[in-house]
């Protein structure tokens, strides 16, 4: 099963890289881009029986390592594979 973990700086934390990217986009003429926040993306292949189990493992990994709770927060998406994804979709 695949877990996708998105780690981003907390809204209250200034993001110098995102600001620099936004300025570059403005230089390119993208005046409608009003803000950029840069983050990290992880794909975890997890040997789990259920999406819930995969989510629990991914959350633990994010808490302990992938994100630094002082400055970052995270969001998890579970992709249970083609067949399982369909049933998970129904369950949702």
């Amino acid at each position, binding site marked *: 099963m695949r877990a996708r973990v998105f780690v981003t700086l907390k809204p209250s934390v*200034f993001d*110098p890289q995102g600001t620099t990217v936004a300025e570059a986009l403005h230089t390119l003429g993208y005046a409608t881009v009003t803000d950029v926040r840069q983050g990290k993306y992880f794909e975890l292949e997890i040997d789990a029986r259920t999406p819930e189990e995969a989510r629990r493992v991914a959350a633990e990994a994010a808490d302990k*390592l992938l994100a630094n709770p002082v400055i970052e927060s995270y969001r998890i998406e579970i992709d249970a594979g083609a067949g399982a994804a369909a049933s998970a979709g129904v369950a949702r």
Partner: protein
Amino acid sequence: MKFAVVVFPGSNCDHDAYHAVKHVLGQDAVFVWHKETSLSGADVVILPGGFAHGDYLRTGAIARFSPIMQEVRRFADARGPVLGICNGFQVLLEAGLLPGAMLRNRSVRFQCEHVFVKVEQTDTPFTLGCRPGQVLKIPIAHGEGNYYAEPAVVERLERNRQVIFRYTTAAGAVTAEANPNGSVNNIAGLCSEARNVVGLMPHPERACELAIGSADGLVVLESAVASVTQRAVAAAR
């Protein structure tokens, strides 16, 4: 007196620290590989600068899992003096031995230059030889030294006098222009609540000889020697 210099894969200021301790200060120094489980009976522990584990994930994030870090934590818990310099400071933050985290420099550049830092407190093992308010000229060399902690944490650090070094002008004025990286409250270095663990972004070990531009950093290492001597005298009584 023995200093242990911990070496992670990617440490690159380990020899600077070793040289300053051994050849400038005339004290015993040993390298301790990160996979070791003993600090070889050292009196002082230095986590040096560099890019431990390539700074992968976040600066210091992987180094905190190195076997030697359990021993460093035990040493720190027993009030042993621990100094984290630059990447060593980042490792201490990730390991939770000091509060807060580092963000990318406000300039989004790696900054390598001499700066001025004011010694805010002299009751730590690494500043007890300083004059209160003494301004040191020592170099920085980092891309992620923009210290951040939540406002409540920063307030607690200030109240407990845990801010040990602050970026200032040569005259000791805390100004926005003197802040090279955007650190909150111009914070350049901190100590733990028990005051024996100190981390700072500037490199005192690279400023121990006038031949290389400044000897202002030597007092930090000399303080450690005085501190260990004082502890030994107090223990003998």
